[in-house]
């Protein structure tokens, strides 16, 4: 139904590319999310996603200082990945080391990393090229401002991550279901845990330009949470999560392209949350009917 009006915007081939990239990112986010939720790492994932902001800003400032340009894409990706990884390590460390509980550690870390990011972002904005490059768009994402070169890079990163996930699907399932069993079988639990974190960070980095740093992790968690309403094998639930992720991402992009001032991230996550609510309603209604019959 959106197709005619989209054609009218004249985005054409680039739009198709952006939609494709978004679909791949959404599928990856949903699939990774299944394991993040099962391993109870949703909140740590959220901190890691927000923690990409200081990394991006630091990378921008470093790029400017080194005269290679603040908007160098690979530099921004590496910066984001570094601070996201740091946060993913910092939260559990904090909660182990000090008696503030996992929730306290999460909240403190979120404030720390995102606060630092916001301060750095204002510094970046004072740079002429920073405000021109629209680094602020990174907060909520913008499919319209994503070049086809960017999309190709992001889609490649997402595809590689998806393949890594598929290759180690069995091992990650084992880790998520029963860590002790994984250890008694002799699997390298710490390495697998680190790998899951790396997959998450790669997903965050791949999606931050489209979905935005603030909400990128919602695309990891929400479709996977929706898929939990469906039962069956791990493979089935992961595939459903990937499907919901891709559908939400594509719908979000279509909606955000339709309304000029609507950022892509909120549109995507609203689509994902809408699917979640639908599944929730269907489930509670199904239960009510089951009770009545």
């Amino acid at each position: 139904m959106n197709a005619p009006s989209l054609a009218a915007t004249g985005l054409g081939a680039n739009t198709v590319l952006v939609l494709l990239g978004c679909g791949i990112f959404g599928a990856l986010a949903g699939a990774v999310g299944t394991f993040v939720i099962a391993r109870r790492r949703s909140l740590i994932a959220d901190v890691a996603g927000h923690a990409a902001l200081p990394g991006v800003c630091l990378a921008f400032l470093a790029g400017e200082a080194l005269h290679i340009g603040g908007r160098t894409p690979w530099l921004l990706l590496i910066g984001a990945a570094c601070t996201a990884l740091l946060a993913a390590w910092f939260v559990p460390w904090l909660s182990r080391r000090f008696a503030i509980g996992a929730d306290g550690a999460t909240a403190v870390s979120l404030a720390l990393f995102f606060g630092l990011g916001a301060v750095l972002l204002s510094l970046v904005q004072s740079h002429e090229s920073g405000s021109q490059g629209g680094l602020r768009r990174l907060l909520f994402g913008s499919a319209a401002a994503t070049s086809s070169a960017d999309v190709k890079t992001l889609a490649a990163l997402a595809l590689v991550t998806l393949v890594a996930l598929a290759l180690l699907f069995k091992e990650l399932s084992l880790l998520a279901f029963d860590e002790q069993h994984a250890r008694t079988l002799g699997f390298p639990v710490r390495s697998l845990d680190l790998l899951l974190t790396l997959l998450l960070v790669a997903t965050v980095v791949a999606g931050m330009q489209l979905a935005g740093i603030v909400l990128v992790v919602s695309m990891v968690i929400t479709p996977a949470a929706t898929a939990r309403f469906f039962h069956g094998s791990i493979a089935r639930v992961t595939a459903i999560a990937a499907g919901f992720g891709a559908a939400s991402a594509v719908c979000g992009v279509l909606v955000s392209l339709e309304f000029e001032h609507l950022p892509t991230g909120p549109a995507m996550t609203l689509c994902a949350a809408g699917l979640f609510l639908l599944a929730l309603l269907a489930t509670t209604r199904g239960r009510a009917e089951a009770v009545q019959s």
Partner: protein
Amino acid sequence: MTAGASAAAPLELRGFSAGYSQSEIKVVDASFTLGRGTLTALVGPNGAGKSTLLKGILGLTPVHDAGAVRFFGQSLDAARERVAYLPQRSEIDWNFPASALDVVAMGLYRRLGLFRRVNRAARDEARAALALVGLEAQAAQPIGELSGGQRQRVLLARALVQRADLLLLDEPFANVDELTERTIARVLEDLRANGTTILAVHHDIGTVRANFASAILFNVRVLAHGPAESTLTDAAIVRAYTASNAANLSAGGAA
């Protein structure tokens, strides 16, 4: 090295200690040897450290004296394929999206190897193990929909597919229905008769003799080990169940 016979024992502990931190040692100086084809209950009061002992043996506790345990005369890493563990049912997240078959197939993951997918042969093997515990019809069912007893049998089937020579089971008979209890007892007895060595934590002192030939009476340390009949005397049980852990610890210091 020790003499041949004892070096090849499926499980041998010599002064083994384990716990969750250096200040919280729950297993002190445990020594015992399990022979091939034996079915032994690990009996003791709540908080005696029975589960910690099992986990410690498998290297799952933060503090454990790995050097004091030998499996078939070898270290755990060398003998890993011959050892299987069944955790307490309550330690598992049963809301995890998986079918009974998925969970049982996990017991085969090590043998399948890295990157390999669960193939038809593995699924057939998992299905056969489910049939052994009477759950063939539940293979495709989500684990969240299974009853407590069925979940326990799924975990047993997962241990069965590992085709281990030594089974360490944490409370396999806890809160299960009668059918499950009979099924598990039958499976364990069949395994034992075929030469498998089994050590199972068992908290219900009243049913030990019915299901186990031998018993280890345990409260922080090994208090007695032998045939269930002669080991679980009233006097020994009272001693194990009334002695406080702290008293045992200090008594052990003098021993």
